[in-house]
């Protein structure tokens, strides 16, 4: 049944006309899938740049109109049980499980229903950058607070963001900083802060890790799981970090880190690899990093420059990346206007596809890229997509076949028209290029 697909047309580009192609490329990268509505509004905007500008401005504001079934009141305040009995422990574990799932569903629904998908995409990016996991943190409220912090700074100032992260309770638990005390420093947060959150490996020495760990001693939590600087545990002594000497606190050290070009290069490269291409262009990265530093680490101008750059709009970049499980699942549901899909099932698929939301596999986050697809996950992706067309709801989408191809496939592919709408949708969704963005 699939033989009629002509793979020859993979090589053909630019068949939709440049505006459509530019818009779908932009939306595939900055949103979750392309919807009929989002494509129209992009096409109707005056210029590409003005559309991008508006998208970024809009996404900086938290979407308060978004109604979801979730309220934080179902989450018990973070607390520690005093010598719980076996039964109490069991109940607690069950509650925890339910609350963790409720939180995931809450985020899933936000991504599905928001009118500011770029904001959620940035939140997802930061979740994969400043990683924490429910599994380790255990307190759902703290994971919720962290997620909201990502929303607040999604397109804000990276300097303020970084300082805030050093005080984020979920982060302090995730990277064991509660146990980081003057007498015996715990290096976990210090190391990952340098290696994964700011400078990248190779730009500092083991000694600097130790000095930062000393600076971070005493950054802990009180018994209500709120940030607390525990003076008694802090090492106020002389330190030397990347050649700067003094009685440095962790915040002083963060400023030293931000004064290094490597930090801007590292962050910009990571954003570039997420939004533009798996293969960074050194010259462009340098340019963007300079802008990032000169705007005192504001993310809005950086993202505007990146998304309107020639690199981003370059035709060879179209459909050159692979959708993450979240993009595949949320994107398909958004494009097909499938708003009542069982969120728990969607989350389960994300998990089996290798992206367990709020539970990245390790502190480096999901590696992504081509690694999203292997023999195992490709088959599960296809199974999920078959499931989508099985219900009746999908058949109500009021779009003609041409438009469907346009919004669903990132490259122009010839799909033989057929009377059977379900069959037509299957042909699109099962097509290898559907996995691309």
């Amino acid at each position, binding site marked *: *049944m*699939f*033989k009629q*697909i002509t*793979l*020859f047309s*993979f*090589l053909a580009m630019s068949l939709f006309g440049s505006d459509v192609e530019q818009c779908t490329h932009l939306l595939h990268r900055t949103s979750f899938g392309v919807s009929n509505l989002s494509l129209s509004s992009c096409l109707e905007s005056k210029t590409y740049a003005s559309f991008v500008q508006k998208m970024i401005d809009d996404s900086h504001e938290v979407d308060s109109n978004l109604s979801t079934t979730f309220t934080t009141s179902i989450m018990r305040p973070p607390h520690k049980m005093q010598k719980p009995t076996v039964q109490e422990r069991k109940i607690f574990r069950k509650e925890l499980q339910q609350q963790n799932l409720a939180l995931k569903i809450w985020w899933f629904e936000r991504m599905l229903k928001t009118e500011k998908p770029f904001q959620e995409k940035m939140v997802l990016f930061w979740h994969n950058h400043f990683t924490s996991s429910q599994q380790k943190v255990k307190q759902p409220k703290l994971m919720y607070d962290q997620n909201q912090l990502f929303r607040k700074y999604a397109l804000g100032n990276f300097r303020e963001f970084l300082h805030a992260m050093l005080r984020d309770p979920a982060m302090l638990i995730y990277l*064991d900083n*509660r*146990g*980081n*005390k003057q*007498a*015996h*420093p*715990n*290096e*976990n947060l210090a*190391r990952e802060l340098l*290696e994964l959150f700011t400078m990248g*490996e190779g730009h500092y020495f*083991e000694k600097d*890790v130790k000095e930062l760990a000393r600076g971070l001693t005493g950054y802990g939590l009180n018994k209500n799981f709120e940030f607390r600087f525990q003076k008694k545990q802090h090492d106020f002594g002389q330190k030397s970090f990347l050649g700067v000497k003094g009685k440095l606190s962790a915040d002083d050290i963060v400023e030293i880190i931000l004064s290094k070009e490597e930090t801007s290069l590292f962050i910009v490269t990571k954003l570039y690899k997420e939004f533009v291409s*798996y293969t960074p262009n050194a010259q462009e990265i340098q340019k963007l990093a300079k802008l990032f530093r000169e705007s005192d680490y504001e993310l809005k101008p950086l993202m505007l420059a990146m998304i309107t750059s020639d690199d981003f709009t370059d035709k060879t970049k179209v*459909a*050159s*990346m*692979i959708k993450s499980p979240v993009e595949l699942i949320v994107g398909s549901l958004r494009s097909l206007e499938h708003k009542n899909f069982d969120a728990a099932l969607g989350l389960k698929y994300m998990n*089996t596809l290798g992206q367990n939301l709020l539970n990245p*596999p*390790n*502190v*480096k986050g999901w*590696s992504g890229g*081509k*690694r999203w*697809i*292997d*023999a*195992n*996950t*490709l*088959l*599960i992706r*296809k*199974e999920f997509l*078959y499931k989508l067309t099985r219900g009746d709801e999908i058949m109500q989408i009021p779009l003609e076949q041409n438009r469907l191809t346009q919004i669903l496939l990132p490259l122009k592919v010839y799909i033989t028209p057929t009377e059977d709408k379900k069959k037509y949708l299957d042909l699109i969704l*099962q097509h*290898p*290029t559907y*996995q*691309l963005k």
Partner: protein
Amino acid sequence: MNRRTLLKYLAFSTLTLPLILNANENIQKNKNAKLILIELKGGNDGLNTLIPYADPLYYKHRPNIAIQEKDVLKLNANLGLHPSLKELKELFDLGEIAIFQGVGYENPNRSHFRSIEIWDTASKSNEYLDDGWVKSIKIQNTSNIKGVVLGAEYGPLSGFENGIIKIENINSFLNKSKKLPNNLYLSSNNDALEHILRTEIEIKNSALKLEEKLKNTKPLKHSFEKNNFAQQMHIATQLINAKTNIPFYKTSLASFDTHQNQLNPHANLLKQLSQAIYTLRQNLIESGEWENTTIMTYSEFGRRVEENASKGTDHGTASVHFVIGGNVQGGLKGVYPPLSQLDSNRDLIYTTDFKEMYSFSDRHETAKLM
């Protein structure tokens, strides 16, 4: 910084014949040879795995998390295994397990990600290679499936053009693969698309072969535990017993990154490791494949000698590793790094380069070294 550098390094190593040569030779000699790699993900604490229980420094550095002498499964007057490893102790007594001490490398890197890359590619600390070290083994194997990744990343099995598949559940893999369309393969200048098309073809080819081989197999006699790692070992066992003739298997046991309260979680992980290896062995003995099979553990690093304030351990350097199999000459290999001589970071100084350890995994070569 290319593959050739590695080959050269290994081929002219003065200490021993490299695995690349003897595994090559071994697989040519024995085309049924299987290698199961177990990644202890997160950095396994070697000091609490092979315990220097006679050394007072061990107890001095670890007032809260040391394994007490009475609990240690003693191998000799100085060293013993963690109490969770009782099955491995039995294999030690049978001479089927070689325990390598102080395994690490020059200029150790303490980043999880960089260090595992060094292990996966068998590179030097300052050398950046792309392909997994297993790719260097020339196999005369006719199987179109060269390796199966059962847990986490491809790691040492990365870099193959084709023939490596990732499977989590055999039946669901076979069922789902039937629905896959027969796409034409066309090389394209789009890397991402090419990757997808290649994967589709890989699935088709592998499913065909597995289906045929697995058709008439009997259920395993000794059942595995329910945990994820045991299930990976279960699949490896099924594939080996079905005579699929797939030479390489990569499994993964996670959460060894024990920065805090490590005693219980670590004991648990070692138990899972020990039990699953034992069950796999029992099943492979049934099918007569145990003689053809070699199991190797690896991990990005060991952990700091001194415990931290949260009753855990930070990233360290050298650690202990196991080579197990029906054709392995068992015993303690190498030298335990002295706790009295630590590096400037207060970490153990390695005594065996892991790249050399790979060459011990064949009895023939090991014998030469004894």
